[in-house]
């Protein structure tokens, strides 16, 4: 079982890392705008870090709290995409960094985040990233297909990340100092550190 879950985590990490290699625009030429929507966030480091952080946080809090995100996260992406189209693109770097810092700190502290707060944060992440993903669309892109692809990949990514984390951490009754709990908290600390550095670089003169 230990071996299994380790493999699962590594496989996911490899999938995410491998996603980086794909080039969204070539995919669009080959497979159309739906798959462009699917691949676009996987090639963006901001999306990979933030989606993983959100999924891991929800997964550690347990299935009862996390399962709301299955619907909420894709919905947020859709809303963000829409808002981005209506109000025009803005730089999301600072917002990304702030969300990374907040989610990372909550993870590192192993805080028992209430469901409402978790949902609100996940929705905020989704809206920010949805707007960012829609920002550099070429005018000939079919928005509807792109949105469908983005929603699908958001749903699949968040669901799988939550389930994998839940399996990795097993139960809430695991002691706070088991190596699994520590690994998750350390990941949170690292994500918060990344967010902090990114915020300072965004603010730097």
């Amino acid at each position, binding site marked *: 079982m230990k071996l299994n879950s380790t493999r699962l985590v590594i496989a996911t990490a490899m999938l995410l890392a491998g996603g980086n290699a794909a080039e969204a625009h070539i995919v669009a030429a080959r497979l*159309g705008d739906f798959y462009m929507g699917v691949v676009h966030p996987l090639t963006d480091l901001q999306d990979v870090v933030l989606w993983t952080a959100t999924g891991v946080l929800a997964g550690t809090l347990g*299935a009862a709290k996390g399962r709301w995100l299955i619907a909420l996260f894709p919905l947020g992406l859709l809303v963000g995409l829409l808002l981005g189209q209506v109000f025009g693109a803005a730089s999301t770097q600072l917002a990304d960094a702030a969300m990374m810092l907040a989610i990372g700190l909550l993870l590192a502290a192993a805080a028992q985040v209430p469901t409402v707060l978790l949902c609100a944060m996940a929705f905020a992440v989704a809206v920010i990233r949805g707007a960012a993903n829609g920002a550099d669309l070429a005018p000939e892109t079919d928005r509807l297909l792109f949105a469908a692809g983005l929603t699908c990949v958001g749903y699949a990514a968040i669901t799988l990340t939550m389930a994998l984390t839940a399996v990795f951490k097993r139960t809430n009754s695991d002691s706070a100092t088991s190596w699994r709990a520590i690994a998750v908290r350390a990941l949170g600390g690292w994500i918060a550190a990344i967010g902090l550095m990114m915020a300072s670089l965004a603010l730097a003169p």
Partner: protein
Amino acid sequence: MRAIPYLRLALLALMLALAVLMRPSALSAHEAAMGVLEFREVRPGAFVGRWSIEPSIGASRVDLRVPPHCFLRLPEMNCGAKGLVGPITITNLGSNMSVVLIKVIPIEGEPRSYTISTANPVVSVLGTGAPTLEVWLELARTYVNYGIDHILLGADHLLFVLGLIWIVGSGWRLVKTITAFTIGHSASLAAAAFGLIGVPERPLNACIALSIAFVGVEIVKQQRGEIGLTARYPWIVAFSFGLVHGIGFASALAGLGLERRLLPAALLFFNIGVEIGQLAFVLLVLALIWAHRRLGAVVPRWGEALPAYLIGSVSMFWFFGRLARVFVVI
């Protein structure tokens, strides 16, 4: 109790609206200037290329890419000992130029034509003589990719597979069912590609849509506690509908302009590509089902019929659309 028919009606309307939104990306056949580029082999591996019909944007502005081992400076192109084998791409096909026809006239052997269009900006040139290692590799690369692309873009095939998974669940039964589907579509793909059977494309597409609707009905039956044909003999259903879908694959393959002399190999590689895509899809669906179970996020009782109605409505929408195309030329 009385509310249920209305609920169903509302669901149906919702699904139909969804299906309308999921319109196939129309390949608008807008007329635009066509270009014809001719490559005539003068020495082995060396070609002289010229535009016999110049595209309206001007020949110099066409962004033509030839295989990396070929050196192109029009009118000359030198491919060395490997010959002209590999992908030819035109990247800036767009509003002003929709189709370019490339003619390759070798020293010996038949001349060949390749069509590059907006929908298909890359063509693979496979030489003309006896196939070399380069030709095999290029063939494999090209047709495995075609196969993957075809299954990933074939929403109807994926929906059918999804329906099968929904009915038989995971485990050994699923392996058998998917294998049966694979054998079925491989057999009919081969038969159709070799010309053993010929089915007109439009009625066939309507049939494919109907097969998905059948799976939708079977799901509803299963949920009502009836044991349908699919639940009892999933592999028989999968095999027979696999035959239908395979002919569909063949018509897609025919659209790619396959060369007769390399047909068996191309068929094999295309099929491998289809299986890779299908396996990836099945694994993704299984992973998501596992994740949902793990998170305790299963479909609530009132929504159990939703997926079946979704599958059914989308497929019936396709069916009527395709049926219309059987009788009316759109």
